[in-house]
């Protein structure tokens, strides 16, 4: 029997970490993820975990300590947000290229500047090509569940890549909601013990980690990283199947919400997907064939699967909670449209950059997107595919 609880998203992430009981947690506090290492350090202090907690002096050091720990053969975790992730940037690439399955809780927040502590996805989008598996969570439950699945995916022999579990800063990280927790012993059994293949503390196999890697091999090593990312897709699905057996909660690469018979649909990630479900339900009552594709696994990007899932639609809108400032469109929009193009599927598509710097995304905003999509279906043309949602115009209050 699962345990009925009410927790914030940060409490949910910290609870998952407690149940995983990793060997090392190294973290530096930054809003809105601060509570995760804060709660975790009390677990350490109270002796409910036997983790080595490293209170480092910066995020660069936090990631470095995780790299050192994983290279030694330990299981390491961290948490951060926005500029904390920016400061880790150098080490983010080193973690993935050394094939160290570190697990990070990324509580999404706008990267400065100007200074903003609220939610958008600019932090995550900044590391989308860094070789980390990236999983997004609609609510506290998913932040918890995704964290429980993380090590099984990252540490798989065919993968061996670091993984970040994302959730929306404040919107879910600081909101108390219902959650179903898994019992400690079941989590322990599900996550299992980490048995690294090659590690520094193995005296039977002396190795070097991270030496110079020039023209002769770096290319091949990068290709292996790319291959591991491709492998991750099936592993994520396999782990999700086992997780479903344990909890009854079903996860895929993405969730299709009333998408089967939909004519118009929104593609988005994290908490906005919940608000979109609310709107889809309302529109369905009015007879509008609205649907949602909520992307869960952003890296590896499910190219064929997304193209197929959207192929029957008459128009789609992709919502990006980060602007790429490239005069072309947001990162998710580009990935989705490129996936469809290479699979020879043409569905009219528009992009909305929204929710920047914590601008609240209301049900009315989402509804207006479906209204726009219906208009596109009716007129058969898109004047401007790169749009804003919720941006104040001159004269607005």
């Amino acid at each position: 029997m699962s345990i009925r609880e009410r927790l914030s998203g940060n409490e949910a992430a910290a609870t998952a970490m407690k149940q995983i009981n990793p060997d090392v947690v190294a973290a530096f506090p930054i809003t809105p993820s601060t509570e995760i290492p804060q709660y975790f350090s009390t677990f350490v202090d109270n002796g409910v975990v036997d983790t080595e907690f490293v209170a480092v002096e910066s995020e660069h050091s936090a990631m470095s300590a995780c790299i050192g720990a994983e290279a030694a053969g330990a299981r390491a975790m961290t948490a951060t947000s926005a500029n904390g992730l920016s400061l880790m940037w150098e080490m983010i690439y080193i973690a993935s290229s050394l094939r160290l399955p570190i697990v990070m809780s990324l509580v999404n927040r706008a990267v400065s500047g100007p200074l903003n502590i609220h939610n958008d996805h600019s932090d995550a989008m900044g590391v989308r090509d860094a070789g980390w598996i990236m999983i997004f969570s609609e609510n506290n439950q998913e932040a918890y569940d995704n964290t429980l699945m993380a090590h099984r995916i990252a540490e798989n022999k065919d993968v061996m890549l670091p993984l970040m579990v994302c959730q929306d800063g404040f919107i879910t990280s600081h909101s108390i909601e219902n959650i179903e927790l898994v019992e400690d012993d079941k989590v322990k059994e599900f996550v299992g013990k980490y048995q690294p293949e090659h590690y520094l503390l193995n005296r039977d196999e002396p190795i070097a980690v991270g030496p110079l890697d020039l023209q002769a091999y770096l290319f091949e090593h990068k290709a292996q990283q790319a291959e591991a990312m491709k492998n991750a897709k099936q592993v994520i699905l396999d782990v999700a199947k086992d997780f479903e057996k344990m909890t009854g909660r079903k996860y895929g690469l993405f969730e299709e919400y009333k998408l089967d018979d939909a004519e118009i649909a929104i593609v988005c990630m994290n908490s906005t997907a919940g608000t979109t479900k609310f709107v889809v339900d309302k529109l369905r009552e009015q007879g509008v064939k609205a649907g949602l594709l909520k992307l869960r696994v952003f890296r590896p990007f499910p190219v064929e699967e997304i193209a197929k899932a959207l192929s029957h639609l008459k128009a789609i809108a992709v919502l990006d909670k980060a602007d790429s400032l490239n005069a072309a469109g947001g990162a998710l929009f580009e990935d989705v449209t490129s996936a469809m193009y290479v699979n020879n599927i043409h569905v009219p598509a528009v992009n909305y950059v929204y929710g920047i710097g914590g601008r609240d995304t209301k049900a009315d905003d989402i509804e207006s997107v479906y209204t726009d999509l219906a208009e596109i279906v009716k007129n058969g043309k898109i004047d401007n595919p790169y749009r804003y949602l919720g941006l104040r115009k001159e004269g607005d209050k």
Partner: protein
Amino acid sequence: MDNMIEIRWHGRGGQGAKTASLLLADAAFNTGKYIQGFPEYGPERMGAPITAYNRISEKPITIHSNVYEPDYVVVVDDTLLESVDVTSGLKETGGIIINTTKSAEHLKEELKGYSGDIYTIDARKISEEALGRYFPNTPMLAAIIKVSKIMTDEELLEDMKGSFKHKFAKKPEVIDGNMKALEMALKEVKKIQ
């Protein structure tokens, strides 16, 4: 959503409006409901206006925006009536609960023709009498539960007794005072005519 209740709290930093919204979420959770409790984070400082929200439902809640058309509004500090549009979006079928000693005429004027129910409670008097100090959030919690009928008085008192025991494990002397504040508030919240 058929039976989802949405609540907006207005208070000033330091008065416990955020805590009250979390306590309400807790209490409703304990009676089997689906809940959300979240503050609107800004540049928080003592005395600055703050907003917090609740959603309470029989069914899972998916919406993740702030609340724009609340069923109920709770005003923890009546000096906010001058500066904050507390009835913004408030449903006429719902109500507003204000911690105040001001007259009915004055309040009606401040609320600019809001035609839903207006309730008042003197949380300062209750808090000072029951706790010897001014913590308006406990009486306001009882008042919103009484008005919104999220649960019965008995359910609230039973549940809060457990919560207070846990919350004040290190200072049990304040448990009785808080319980008294709840009981007084349940009796004293009044609809103005």
